[in-house]
């Protein structure tokens, strides 16, 4: 393989990973914009969805039903977490809410360990067949499924946010919760909805990558954090930009890991996170964004 072929291959795998990160990043943005919580447990939705789909298939459910059930279950889990752990503490400081999501991360990870143990699981690819050639890279069929299904999910999400009253209400809560409440939107319910959407997106990410890698009880944190990198690049605010940032991040990570050393994959990924935070800090210093937030709250 020539270097340019290799690079094409890395970019292709980066795009696939980036799509997965985008699903997780979108969930983080949905939760953060409506409930102002940074959800450390976002990746656990992926682990839960993946492991559940594996078990449902082992019980004899057909693939597509197992996948759909797992995504729905992950959505329900998201909504449940909001009701049980976030709503009771919604008056608490951001610090306390953050610690709560760390606690949820631990409890979920532990529960997954209890139910599924430490062994890795795998799902069959959604369709069989040899890899497909895209430009000069060979891409296996599952990767195309990942991209196609994610694209479909994004379109559904876009239509939901722009065409339905509920989607618009959700955006209203993100912009100004007080005003949303005044026009009769139930902000608490919208919070639950946002968590459920995040759960579904996380679960979807989990079932999509399991045919490509293994699913384990502790796969969540790293995945969720990588979604966070993409989301934080664009300030945890914009959905479309989060998707693009996650894609770019996936490509950078794949190129770095491929060209330097795959041992350093995570170091490259989180090195990018630190670099992004530093870059955003410098940008903030330049435009004086730091304090204007607090001043704007008056």
């Amino acid at each position: 393989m020539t270097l340019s072929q290799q690079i094409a291959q890395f970019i292709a795998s980066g795009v696939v990973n980036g799509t997965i990160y985008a699903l997780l990043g979108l969930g983080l943005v949905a939760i953060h914009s409506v409930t102002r919580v940074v959800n450390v447990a976002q990746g656990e939705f992926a682990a839960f969805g993946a492991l559940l789909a594996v078990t449902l298939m082992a019980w004899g459910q057909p693939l597509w039903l197992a996948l759909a059930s797992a995504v729905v279950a992950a959505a329900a889990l998201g909504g449940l977490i909001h009701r049980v752990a976030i709503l009771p503490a919604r008056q608490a400081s951001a610090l306390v809410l953050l610690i709560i999501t760390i606690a949820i991360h631990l409890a979920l990870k532990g529960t997954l360990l209890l139910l599924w143990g430490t062994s890795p699981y795998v799902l069959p690819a959604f369709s069989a067949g040899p890899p497909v050639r895209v430009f000069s890279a060979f891409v296996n069929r599952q990767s195309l499924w990942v991209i196609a299904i994610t694209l479909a999910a994004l379109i559904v999400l876009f239509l939901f946010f722009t065409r339905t009253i509920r989607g618009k209400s959700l955006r209203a809560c993100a912009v100004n919760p007080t005003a949303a409440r005044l026009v009769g939107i139930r902000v608490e319910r919208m919070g639950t909805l946002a968590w459920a959407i995040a759960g579904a997106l996380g679960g979807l990410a989990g079932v999509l990558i399991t045919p490509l890698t293994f699913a384990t009880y502790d796969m969540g944190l790293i995945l969720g954090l990588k979604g966070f990198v993409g989301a934080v690049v664009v300030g945890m605010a914009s959905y479309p930009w989060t998707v693009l940032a996650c894609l770019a991040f996936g490509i950078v990570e794949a190129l770095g890991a491929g060209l330097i050393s795959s041992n350093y994959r995570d170091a490259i990924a989180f090195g990018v996170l630190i670099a992004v935070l530093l870059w955003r800090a410098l940008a903030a210093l330049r435009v004086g964004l730091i304090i204007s937030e607090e001043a704007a709250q008056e």
Partner: protein
Amino acid sequence: MRRARAWTALFMAALVVLPFLIQGRLSLSIFVFIGLYSLIVLGLTLLAGHAGQVSLGQAAFYGLGAYISAITTLRGLDPWIALPLSVGGSALVAFLIGAPIFVLRGHYLVLGTLGFNIVADVFIRNLQHLTGGPTGLTGIPPLHIGQSVIAGDRAYYYLTWGLLLAGYWLCRNLIHSRIGRALVAIRSSEVAAASLGINPAYYKGRMLALSAGLAGLAGALYVHYLSFVSPSPFAFTFSIDLLVMSVLGGIYHLPGAVLGTGILTALREVLRTVMPRLLGTGASAEYEIIVFGLLLAVVVILSPSGVWPGVAALLRIGGRDEPAKSAIIAREIFPAGGTTSDPQHETAAQEVVLEVDQLQKRFGGLLAVHNLSFSVRAGEVYAIIGPNGAGKTTAFNLISGVLRPTRGVVRLRGAVVTHLPPYRIAALGVGRTFQTPKVFGDLTVLENVMVGLHRRTGAEFFWAMLGLGRREDVRSQSEAAGYLQLVGILDRANERAATLPFGALRLLEIARALAAGPRLLLLDEPASGLTSSERAALVRLIRRVCEAGVTVMLVEHDVAMVMGVADRILVLNYGEQVAEGTPAEVRADPRVIAAYLGETTAEEAS
């Protein structure tokens, strides 16, 4: 207070005799580890409870200290020289990461440090020639005194706990110093702290460095204790354990650090024997994370300040040690017949203190301030009036550096300050109050004013940790009391600021701003929400401040008050300058009457 001392003495005595009591029954090494972990958790508690920030990278700083000490001593460096290198190295790395991240408000530090922990873990495992990779390093020389080697559980038990107590004492001094007050202030309102010349990112960065230094110390002790090091204890999962310990004990109280560490470490030992019995031999100790997760969730939701307050109540200690009211002697501020004692204030009369040139601020499509130009001369009272949304508060935010102008220049005594951050502008002598008072609710009224004195007092970090700022603090107390007397709320000096009525909050803000020694004082709607007698007192206060040589600029809705107190008035409407002049000129200006005052209001004003 006396009871707390008695319990402390009892606790120390128990620590000393513990190795002899448990001999043969329990391993002492678990208590060495409680000591080591307590050192790390102490730093984390300080960071979370006093700087309001959480780090999930403490295990990495612990590992950094461990490997710095291991690598340098294996190459022949004396362990006693390696120890400060470990502390300093960890602290430096933490500061370099933290200081920029702290510029971003919110909780980016958690994810930044978690990312750092993962990066550090990858490097430790892969830099084979330096760290020995996954198998680690062996044969690390122990600490020694002269020729005799420090080895064994008992020696490291006393060493670790001795250092822990020393660290505890240093941290305790720190939180009771001016630095500690500044941190509480920052946690409460960064804007208000910055308006007093305090740089929030700097102090939070220092706290992260301190906590990482403590973790580095624990790491160095760890490698010399075990004479062996491998990557596994420094993975980010341990950072999460450390956070659980800190939150469990209680992040607002330093003893909580030791308590939480003790409880969790003991609990883990118990779980490791109970769990396999309960869930079959195949069940690994990893199941403990479910218990830890639930414990953390329950503690945070039900009792966010952890278990220490409950224990303290049980032992009947606690409550804050406040200075006795009689001990505070208010020093007279602005003595009659002269300007302030501070020679900086002697600005030549008629000198231009503040000059605003073509200032413009755009928020999206809204032009909040448009081509604003004016200048304020030393010693005058300059007021900006205008209807709601006229851009008055925006103008203040632009002058004090809270917002950056889209265009235009702000000059303070000739020097351009447009692009300086708020704490630098405050340091140049601009004090301010806020439309909605931003007092530091967790501090007493007196302490609020002492935060105002922050820049005029000098006990820096290490000085404060050694407890050497106390004499200065006594002086600060009497000076702060003087400012309270000046504004008339000295009788409330020891109350928590959050409990004050609204009028007193406004006065407290003025006292606090004056304590910072401003040459120019910006008052944002000082009279709103005040009763008429309070307003009259406020007018007298403004005159007194002005006579003492402080230039006063105010934004106000109360036209009658402005007409009575201001030397010159600027009228704004929809971001545009409508008129400027003495009260008489402004009152007569037909544009002003049309735009803002209206016939009836003008009559009221006169």
